[in-house]
Structures are given as C-alpha cells and as structure tokens.
C-alpha cells in the first residue's frame, strides 16, 4: 500500500504510546471507521471525551491519516498480511495492529459496497410502468381501432446527483413482444454466465 508522507507521519503519531494510549487509539480508530460509513458528515465526530487532552491539530491530522489508510486498504482489497506489514513499517506494535485489523474486518463489507457505488455509469433503469390503450379515432383519421402500449422507464442519472427522469415511448404489441424477447435473451445469457 502506497501512502503519502503526511499520512505516514499521522499514522506514526497514532502508533506512539506517548501521544495516544491504547484506549484512545481504539476509540479514534472506531470513530474513523464509523465516520466513513455513516451517511451524513458529522462535524462533532471528534468531540469524544477521550480526546479532550489531545492537541486538536494533531487529532485532526491523525484522524485524516487513519481514514486515508482505511480507504486505501479497502480499495486494494488488502489482506491481513498486507495491512500488518504496512502498519509494522510505521512502528505499530502488535496489539494496535490487531485492534486495527479487527475493526477493519467489522466494517469492511460496508465500505466495499460504498466504494463500488462511486463512479460514472450510463443512466440506470430502476423501474418500468406501462399502459395499454385502444386507439379509436383521432382528428385526422377515423376508425383507427388499434391497441397500443405506452411504456415509461424510470431512469436514474448517477452523474447529476441522482436525479431521475422518465423515458416514454409507445409500441404496438409486436414491438413489445420483440422488446421482451430481447430482454429475455439477455437474462438467459446472464444465467448461462453464472453457471460457468
């Protein structure tokens, strides 16, 4: 895991028993993980009673370093040996490494889900609604007498802050059968791929 110098310095401070005793260290690591997973940014995250004695600048620096290290670890899908060797290089003793790794295991899958949802993708279909109508006549042609479908796809645009819009189109029965047929082909090939 490649970490920048400032992150390394922050982590080294965390490893120092003179600055952070074990209990304070554990609380800070727990707080760091929780702040990543929670949905809202909480400005009072560092207002724990255990942190009253510690210099606020140092606290912020260490919290920053811890969160960066955590995200790097999850991003690279780091295993125990990678994390252990990285932390040991930064002068973490075995106890603190264990504490870090156990909390890491606890929050790992949530963080992975979070990171996998970040990214650009084409508009994502969430839902479909349909309407069947029977066209009798209109202003230009009488005696039309044809059934027709109106389909609305609810599409979410991940790029513009999750705004969703509706895509409307009409189709005849044959066209809808064609559409469903093609979707079924896609589903079938998905099934085949999962069985490989």
């Amino acid at each position: 895991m490649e970490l920048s110098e400032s992150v390394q310095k922050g982590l080294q401070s965390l490893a120092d028993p003179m600055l952070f005793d074990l209990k304070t260290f554990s609380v800070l690591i727990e707080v760091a993980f929780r702040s990543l997973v929670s949905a809202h940014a909480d400005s009072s995250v560092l207002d724990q009673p255990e942190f009253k004695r510690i210099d606020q600048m140092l606290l912020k620096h260490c919290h920053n370093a811890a969160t960066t290290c955590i995200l790097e670890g999850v991003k690279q899908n780091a295993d125990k040996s990678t994390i252990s060797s990285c932390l040991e290089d930064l002068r973490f003793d075995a106890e603190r490494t264990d504490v870090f790794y156990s909390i890491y295991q606890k929050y790992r899958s949530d963080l992975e889900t979070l990171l996998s949802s970040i990214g650009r993708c084409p508009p994502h279909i969430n839902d479909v609604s349909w309407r069947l109508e029977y066209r009798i006549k209109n202003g230009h042609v009488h005696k039309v007498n044809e059934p027709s479908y109106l389909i609305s796809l609810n599409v979410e645009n991940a790029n513009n802050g999750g705004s969703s819009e509706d895509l409307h189109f009409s189709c005849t029965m044959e066209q809808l059968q064609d559409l469903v047929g093609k979707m079924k082909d896609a589903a079938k090939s998905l099934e085949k791929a999962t069985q490989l």
Partner: protein
Amino acid sequence: MSPFLTAFKNSPQSEIIFYVARKTGQQSLPVDISITLCLFWPTEGAARNRSFIHSCTNYLFALVLEKTPLEASRCQVHPQHQHKRLFKTVVSEFGRIAVEFLRRGTNPKIYEGAARKLSADAETVQHGVEGLMYLLTESSKLMISEVDFQDSVLVLGFTDELNQLLLQLYLEHRKEVRHILSELTPSLPHYHNLEWRLDVQVASRALRQQVKPTVSMKLHLEDRGEKSAKVLQTDPATLIHLIQELEKALAELKTTHCRRILRNIK
C-alpha cells in the same frame, strides 16, 4: 327547389352559386353565383357530416363542351357522346394528379401545364384537382363503404362510368391516403430496436477487484422518421423485474375484458 338548396342559398357566402345536377331528363336549375356542391355522407349521423366541396364538375363540363359554367348548368347533365372519352381521360388524369399531390405536395406548374392542354385557365384546373383531393381525404378519413361512397357521389349527377371511376380511385388509394393522414396525428417516439450487452465491472478508480455484473442496453426509438438511441444500464435483478412487468402487460391484451372491447368497438 329542394329543402337543402334553400338552406344553402341563405348562407352568408354570397359569392357561391348553387348548382344542383339532376338526373337525366330533367333540366337543371340555373342559379346565381359560384359553384358549390353539397355532399351528404350517409354514415355517422348524416346531418352533421355535410362536406362542402369546391368542385370542378361544372368547370369540367364547361371545358369539354366549350360553354361557360352558367350555360353548362342549363344543359342536361349528360356530356355529349363524342366528348365522353375525353371527359373520362381528363377526370382520371386529374385523379392521378390529386393522388400525387397528396403524396408529395402540390406543384403549381402542373396546373399551368394541364390548363394549357385543355385551353382553360389554371385556377379552374386547380379547383378541380383540389376538389378531388378533398373528396379522397374525406372519404378515406371516414373509411366509408363502397355503397356509401356511391350514394354520396350520386348526388353530383355524374354518369355511371364516372361514378365508377371515382369509386375505383377511392378504393385503390384509400389505404395510402389514410397512411399519409396518420402522419399528421400527434405521436410519441415509438420503439424501434433494443441492443444489449452483458458486462462485468472488474475495477474502478474507487475500488479494485470487483465483480459487478451489469447489462448495458441501447434503446433505439423513432419519432416520425427521426431516429434516436439511448444508452442505458441495469443490473440483473432489475432486468428480471422489467421482464416480469412487461410480460404482465402483454398478458393483459389476452384477457376477456380486453378481447370484449377489441371485438365490440369496430
């Protein structure tokens, strides 16, 4: 004078002459100003479906018989025998022009060409062709039966041959005219094609070593000849949900309720 003639005479369009072609053997009524023919469509609440046609009829008679419209109205409605064939050709030619104009739009040069050939003025020819166009669009729009069409055209007092000609013109072209008219109706983009692709996302900037299956789709839509394509994405679970919903939609068409409605509204 027949009752509906009286009604039209009192209409505010004072520059309109009313001419009624009667059947053979009777003299027509010479009246005042221009030429309008009233057609009654016997279907669908007859009283409401009166169409006024600015008709070429009398002008055609005048052209063929070389008389003024007013004089033509005083003759018996039978054109002279030696002009019968010429009359038929003229009408079928005008019919062909009318259909062509409905397909591709009007072309004023054709009026001038035809006018020169028939030694009449272009406005006359224009009225004639426009009358035929209107006859075709109205009858195709309402999709009237052969019998109704013949009854309607009978009011004009043409010969049987001419009636047959107009009927043939209508029957041959009505589907096409309806198709052209349907392009005027408001419409939404409709489905054209769907392309799909199965992808697995293996890594991104935010997270390496992923396995995330997605289905990418390109939905082709068409709106009056304008094609557009939208690239969309969905995940496997949503795809299955979409398929289930749309199959429900298709099944709906086969229910008794739907069938009853489709059967009874014809």
